[in-house]
């Protein structure tokens, strides 16, 4: 991996974001069949396939510094992308501990954690951070614990409080959402924040998923993939900035499809936080342009069939209705049966 030397690329303005051949190869292509329908496609989040995004609990890749720079930009403009309700303090420290322990164990060349009782020493060589602090004492950190650690880990994080047989979105750091807002969803229950999703409620998907997550045990995290499409490699496609990116969907042509339309895949990991009994929901986003995607044989063909046959309500929800025809037409050249 080439993290330290990789230049900081941008997810806005000139959109200099690119994937290396390695990143293209390890991109989590989410379709295992030629069609797509909702399922609670959850599996144990155990380490597998060295070098893949599934090797470590929290994947750090060549975009690390770019993504952390992007998060800082978003937070500068809109601090409400970060939230910790008062009753989520223990969960915030839980999350810091889980992330630091994983990063230090999985990437010792970049992250070092030394502990003597409550006195912790954290070093992040990629961002030149060297911080001594007292675990549990927010005043010993330059900012709140969840903000401190999530400014150093790729992906969005929601911390869900478990009470009344439900999960509530009561804390998080969400700067790269696929068109949802932490400030809007704050305090909502599991089904409330999923209410915009079409079809799945009637299928009972959320009943099963909630039941499963309520019984999630510490030390036994689970994961799933989710996907959508995004115009340009724009990590921050949030409702708060819709005026900056919404119109892009109407500017897709046969000429710019390959470069501008991106498949956006989320690796979602759900883990029980042991001290707080909260659930950490991490959403690690991978972006890949159509031009990059079709360099791997078979992917263009499969994506063509999936998008061609996708039920209308799902296509609408994923925001692709305005350019779906153009995209499907462009992808058809990779499908020998089209």
């Amino acid at each position, binding site marked *: 991996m080439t993290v330290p030397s990789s230049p900081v690329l941008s997810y806005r303005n000139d959109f200099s974001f690119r994937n290396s051949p390695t990143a293209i190869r390890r991109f989590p292509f989410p379709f295992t069949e030629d069609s797509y329908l909702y399922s609670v496609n959850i599996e144990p989040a155990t380490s597998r396939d060295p070098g893949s995004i599934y090797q470590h609990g929290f994947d750090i890749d060549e975009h690390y510094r770019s993504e952390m720079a992007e998060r800082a930009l978003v937070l500068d403009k809109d601090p409400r992308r970060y939230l910790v309700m008062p*009753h*989520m303090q223990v969960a915030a420290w839980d999350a810091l501990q889980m992330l630091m322990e994983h990063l230090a164990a999985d990437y010792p060349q970049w992250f070092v954690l030394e502990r003597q009782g409550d006195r912790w020493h954290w070093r992040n060589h990629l961002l030149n951070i060297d911080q001594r602090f007292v675990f549990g004492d927010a005043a010993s950190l330059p900012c709140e614990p969840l903000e401190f650690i999530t400014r150093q880990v790729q992906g969005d994080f929601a911390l869900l*409080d478990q009470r*009344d*047989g439900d999960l509530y979105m009561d804390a998080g750091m969400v700067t790269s959402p696929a068109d949802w807002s932490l400030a809007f969803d704050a305090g909502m229950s599991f089904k409330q924040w999923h209410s915009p999703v079409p079809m799945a409620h009637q299928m009972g998907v959320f009943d099963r998923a909630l039941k499963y997550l309520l*019984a999630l*045990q*510490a*030390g036994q995290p689970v994961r799933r993939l989710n996907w959508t499409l995004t115009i340009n490699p724009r990590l921050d496609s949030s409702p708060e900035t819709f005026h900056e990116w919404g119109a892009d969907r109407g500017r897709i042509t046969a000429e710019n499809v390959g470069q501008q339309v991106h498949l956006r895949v989320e690796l979602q990991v759900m883990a029980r936080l042991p*001290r707080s009994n909260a659930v950490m929901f991490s959403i690690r986003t991978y972006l890949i342009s159509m031009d990059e995607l079709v360099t791997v044989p078979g992917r263009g063909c499969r994506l063509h069939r999936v998008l061609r046959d996708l039920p209308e309500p799902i296509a609408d929800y994923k925001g692709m209705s305005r350019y779906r025809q153009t995209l499907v037409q462009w992808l058809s050249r990779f499908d020998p049966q089209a």
Partner: protein
Amino acid sequence: MSRALKVRVSAAKMLTPVVRELTLEPCTGPLPGFSAGSHVQVHLPGNARNAYSLTSDPSDSLHYRIAVRLQEASRGGSHYLHRHVEVGDTLQISPPANLFALHSTASLHILIAGGIGITPFMAHIAELERRQANFELHYLYRPGLSDAYVQPLQQRLGSRLHTYSCRPDLSKILRDRPLGSHVYTCGPQPLIDAVQQQAKALGWPRVRVHWEAFKGATPGQAFDLQLLRSGQRLRVGADQSLLEALESAGLQIPNLCRGGVCGQCVTRHVRGEIEHRDSFLSPSEQAEFLMPCVSRGCGPCVSLDL
């Protein structure tokens, strides 16, 4: 199911003539963190496992503590932990799981403990003190027998502790409490039933009443077991639970409480008379499913969809 932890008994103490407290330390590596109200399953001889609440402060990452009441009419798990386990011995335990968590946004926590049901509240109290939360403990016990933590709690809680040597008037405890109050109870089933009934009578919303029963598998008659998918035939001994018999045969059945409460081990039964002993399934669900951690056959043979 999940990987077991190996721990060493680093201290043991009789708190009363029938309650023994064991302090556990890890044999290797750190102990997993836990939230107040969590329990562990202690693995016992003969493939049995008993669930015990962790009584230690959740912020203590070096030790777990459990308190075991000697149960005369039991299958021998508590007897083993009282009479056979000594300081220095190692035990296998399951990682902590929580089915009795504190409610994070409650404005007042009313804790009602009966006898050995004090154990989960010991961790709750440590956590509530740390949060500087508003709480009170009502502790019902038999003096000299099940009063395991009365003395330290008296010093620690002062007027927040209310002690009783016979069943208190629950309506006094539960009437006219502020909005946002939650009540938690742990102890013998009659106490739990009484708290639930009183809370309901006084109009408490169901979600503000939390309870944890202290019951595990109890013996019954032996019976045969037929597993329809694998074709296996097993014998469930009188002192063995159905779940333990399945585990002895190498089956992995998800489970957390081993007390008929959490619903994890639910299994479809097809033939045979069942004595349902769980508190999870509705009567109509029991016609199709059983909880093998506590329920058993009461005829010669039971067939399961396994």
